């Protein structure tokens, strides 16, 4: 199948590639079917590209690659909704915000992770109740930013 008119041109995909969010993403309940596409090889960043609405794509990242300590707890209700057990391959993504022209200020939303069952491709954006995490977690530590700015 081919998805046309996206920001990334035409995307060829098969039925197995479709990630399905029965509730959509938070604030976007009517967009349920997505593809995960790779904008830049060898980076943890991906676009969650809507199939229902080709102009809509969310920047996400494999969180373990950008925030290695991140370990959200998935409660039983979500595990059963997504049919997850210990053996199920899972993907954990979080949305990424980059202020225009300023990648050093990148943040990721650790309070609302996206969990994908890699076997069934069922997915859900979860709201954690854990106070440890914030919606705007800085990906680059302050010292790194300062160093970069000095170097620049």
């Amino acid at each position, binding site marked *: 199948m081919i998805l046309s008119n996206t920001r990334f041109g035409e995307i060829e995909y098969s039925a197995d590639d479709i990630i399905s969010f029965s509730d959509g993403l938070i*604030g976007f309940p009517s967009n349920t079917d997505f593809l995960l596409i790779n*904008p830049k090889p060898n*980076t943890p*960043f991906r676009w969650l590209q809507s199939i229902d609405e080709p102009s809509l794509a969310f*920047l996400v990242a494999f969180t373990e690659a950008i925030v290695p300590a991140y370990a959200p707890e998935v409660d*039983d209700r979500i595990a059963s909704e997504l049919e997850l057990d210990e053996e199920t391959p899972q993907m954990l993504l979080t949305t990424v*915000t980059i202020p*225009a022209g300023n990648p050093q200020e990148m943040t990721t939303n650790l309070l*609302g992770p996206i969990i994908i069952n890699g076997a069934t491709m069922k997915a859900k*954006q979860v709201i954690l109740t854990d106070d440890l995490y914030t919606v705007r977690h800085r990906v680059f530590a302050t010292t790194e930013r300062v160093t970069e700015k000095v170097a620049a």
Partner: protein
Amino acid sequence: MLVLTRKLHQSIVIGDQIEVVVLEVRGEQVRLGIKAPKDVTVHRKEIYEQIQEENKSASEARLEDIPGG
């Protein structure tokens, strides 16, 4: 909007399965206890709105701002 006045430890019942109890009132803060079935999600509204806002900004990211590759 339905407006009800409740005192400490009083509750309201929504439908057959949801109960909201006033647990504590302290100055401007009110602590609520919520009893609901497992398939009913309960969230603080501002968190929900913040996540919605982050989703929106993630959809506005520019390809050229993504580091690496």
